[in-house]
Each structure stands twice: as C-alpha cells, then as structure tokens.
C-alpha cells in the first residue's frame, strides 16, 4: 500500500494531538474494513450504541485471540485469568457484582458520597503544593497524583509504593495501544512480565488483608461472602490489577483533557469560576468532546452481524470508535463545538451496556472536584504550549505534560 490506511493513521502518533479530522473521515464509511483479517471499525453513534448492547458481540479474551492474535489478543502467559472487562456473562457479571459490593449500590451506596470531602482535601493539598511556582506541569503535579492517591486509598495499596507499581503499569498500558508500528512481540513480553510482577505485588497485599482485613476494597474482595461466593485468589488479583490501572489511567486523561479544553475556552472557564455547579455539565460535555477512552478495540462478534448493510462475519474483530460516535452529526448538533449548555449530552464516554465503565461515578466526581478547584484557585491560568505533547497511546489518549502558567494561587475560600 502506498497510502497509509485510515486505521494506521489513527494509531499513528503523529495524529495524536487532533485525531478528530480522521474520525470525521472514518464516519464517511461507518463500517470500515481496510484489510483482510483486520478489524472492522465502527464509528457512527447509533451503530456503536447498538453494538454495545448486542449479545452477538463478545468481550471474551479467548474469542479475541481466536480472531487472529494481534497485540491485544495474544495469549496471556502470566497465569492470571482475564479480568471482567475481558469476559462475557455469566463470568463477567459474577465478578463485577462481587467487585461492586464494597464500591457501590446496592451494598455500598454511600461510599462515594462519603469520600467527597477527602477528595476535595487531596485536591487542595496538591494545589497548595504548587507553592510559589508560576508554572506547573498539570499532569505530573496534579492530574496523575490525584487519582492515584484516591485509588490507592480505596483499594488499600500503600501510596508510597507508587514508584514501584508505576514501573509495571506503564508497560501494561503501553500494550493496550494498538499502534501498528511498534515492536509487538517485545511490547507484549514486557507487558506480561509487568502484569506478573504487579500480580505478585498485589498477592502480597491480598495475603496481608486475608489475615488482617481493613476497610478497603482489597480486603472486601479477599473476604467476599455474598450470594456469588468468594473470588478465587487469582480472580482477586486480576480484578485488583484492573481496578488499580483503570482507576487512575483514564482519570488522568479526563482531568488533563478537561483543563486543556477549559483553557482553550476561557469563557467557559470564567463561568465555572463564578458558578461551580456548571462543572457537572462541563464534565459530561468533556466526556463527549474529549473522551479519555477513544475506542474499544477488544470486541469480537460470535455471529454474523449486519451494520448499515455491511455484514461483519462471525469471528471478526470490531473496534468501536467511541470518540468518533461522540462527534457524529447524525446524533449531536454542531458536534465539534465544546458546549456544556447543550441540552442533550448522552455521550459514549463511558461506553454503555454491561461493560460500561465500572469506575464512572468515581471518575466523574474526581474530575468535577479537580476542575472546580483549578478554576477557582489558579489566577489567570494560561496554556504555555498548545498543543501539548501527548502520550503515545491512541486508546487512552491524553497529554503527557500540560504546562500551565498562572499569576498566583487564590486562597481556598474566595
């Protein structure tokens, strides 16, 4: 091929800062299949929404591997079973229900509400930590440490171990990037090694919690006694790996994308400073406009599925390009405009259906608190570099650094 395929261009790092023109091109062929054996890219809102609720679409890692091993579908040699994100019902449902017991309703409906003050305190501590600086890297100094601190506390992972587990998390996350250029075998090997290490590290913590349970999710997972029975040790480790990684990797991007977008829309930022309630709508619009998970590349179909007249044959891989669906003009008026006042923001930012984001309410709350505080406290904030440098990852897309200048910090209470 002389021309790079659209899929290659989307995953190509050169387009990371602004993939949206490519998504627009992608939507012109709502079901795109560029290469024999390659995935089917689905990019329009209604089709994606339909497939997220379609029982002929599987998330099972085994089906994905059978569909032709790519970086995402290779066999797992870590010995850890797949986490619920890569399973179908009934296993998915069972594991997710057990994981949900200490986290949300019906068994723990108040957990998140009770965390609100703690989250606000962490945020204000991080902002206070900017000290006399007039320039910060919002990723390293704020958007990363905040959700990491929160997920560590929730899960029961010592915050001071962050440098250790970060060394394992990075290669795992890198392996989620379907960049077709990078050295696949090497990357996969590194990721599996890292997953093994992270699993072993968490196994040590789980063992402690089994002996001395504390008030954290890891303790709840190892001692779970609900109607679904306990998780096996290996299931606990897979789940903990998933929660630890998903619990912060995506939120970093949501917060950073959020501040980047607000700094590019100073009028909205000004309104937020004056009306903190606006943050609720801002975060929803962000999830549409700059979703932290750009596409879901891990589904396969277990039957022929017809979408817009195209038959996706049984056994094919399907990529659901959420970020393209979120800007589908068939669904949203003026989709490329960031407009928190739009009446209808039913975005695909957290997916939908049974695999819809487990941590969505936590991510929402973290981002609401973070953006409100940044808007209130940074005096005259501005972007020092636009576009900022991006992380490599095409799926979990967001700036690697976000240099922000400001004239000083306002006090906590205005």
């Amino acid at each position: 091929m002389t021309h790079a395929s659209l899929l290659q261009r989307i995953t190509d790092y050169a387009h990371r800062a602004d993939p949206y023109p490519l998504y627009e091109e992608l939507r012109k062929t709502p079901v795109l299949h560029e290469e024999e054996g390659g995935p089917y890219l689905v990019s329009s809102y209604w089709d994606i929404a339909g497939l997220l609720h379609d029982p002929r679409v599987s998330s099972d890692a085994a089906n994905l591997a059978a569909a032709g091993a790519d970086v995402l579908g290779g066999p797992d040699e870590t010995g850890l079973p797949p986490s619920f994100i890569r399973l179908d019902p009934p296993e998915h449902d069972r594991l997710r229900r057990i994981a949900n017991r200490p986290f949300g309703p019906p068994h723990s409906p108040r957990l998140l509400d009770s965390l609100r003050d703690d989250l606000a305190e962490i945020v204000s501590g991080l902002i206070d930590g900017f000290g006399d600086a007039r320039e910060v890297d919002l990723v390293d100094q704020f958007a990363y440490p905040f959700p990491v601190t929160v997920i560590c506390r929730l899960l029961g992972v010592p915050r001071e171990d962050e440098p250790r587990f970060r060394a394992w998390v990075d290669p795992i996350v890198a392996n989620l990037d379907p960049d077709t250029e990078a050295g696949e075998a090497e990357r996969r090997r590194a990721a599996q090694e890292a997953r093994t290490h992270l699993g072993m590290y968490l196994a040590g913590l789980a063992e402690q919690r089994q002996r001395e349970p504390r008030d954290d999710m890891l303790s709840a997972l190892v001692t779970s006694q609900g109607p679904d029975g306990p998780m096996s040790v290996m299931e606990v480790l897979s789940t903990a790996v998933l929660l630890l990684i998903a619990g912060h990797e995506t939120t970093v991007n949501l917060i950073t994308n959020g501040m980047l977008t607000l700094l590019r829309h100073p009028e909205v930022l000004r309104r937020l400073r004056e009306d903190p309630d606006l943050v609720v709508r801002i975060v929803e619009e962000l999830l549409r406009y700059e979703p932290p998970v750009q596409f879901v590349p891990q589904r396969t179909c277990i039957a022929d599925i017809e979408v817009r007249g195209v038959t996706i044959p049984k056994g094919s891989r399907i990529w659901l390009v959420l970020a393209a669906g979120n800007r589908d003009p068939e669904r949203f008026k003026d989709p490329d405009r960031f407009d928190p006042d739009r009446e209808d923001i039913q975005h695909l930012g957290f997916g939908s259906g049974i695999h819809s984001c487990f941590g969505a309410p936590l991510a929402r709350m973290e981002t609401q608190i973070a953006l409100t505080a940044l808007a209130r406290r940074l005096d005259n904030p501005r972007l020092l570099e636009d576009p900022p440098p991006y992380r490599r990852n095409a799926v979990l897309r967001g700036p690697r650094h976000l240099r922000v200048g400001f004239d000083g910090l306002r006090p906590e209470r205005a």
Partner: protein
Amino acid sequence: MRLVVDLNRCQGYAQCVFFAPDVFALHGEEALVYDPHPDEVQRERLARAVAACPVQAITAEGLDGTGETGETAAGTGEAVLHGR
C-alpha cells in the same frame, strides 16, 4: 423538588444512587426506587444525579429554584430515544 424517572429507559447503571444516595436506591441488583419528592437539601446532589444518568431518564423540577432545570435535558433525550 419533584422528580420522576422513566424506568423504561433506566438500565440500572445506578449513577444516580452514587451521587444522591438519599434520593435513589437500588432494590436488588437492578431495580431503582426513589423518593419523588426529595428535600431541598438534596438539590445539589440531585442535580449531579440528573446529569450523570447515562440514559437521561430523570426529569426533575425545582433544581435551580425556578422549576425549569432538568426537564430540558430529559426532554430532548426523550424525543431522540423514543425514536429509537
């Protein structure tokens, strides 16, 4: 304040319960029950719950004290979804 949830549209994502646990509750794994007449102190939490609903099923009145908020968001989503 007043609210109603279109339970045909509700799929049990329970975002409203996370954000306003004194107004909404899950009855079992998936069925939603709620107080259709929540107290004024729930206003802020209710507004977050309405916005967070992934299927835009909640219609509320009195969120901004004028009796207009919430209904517009739900109204538009409804038109679209009923078309589905």
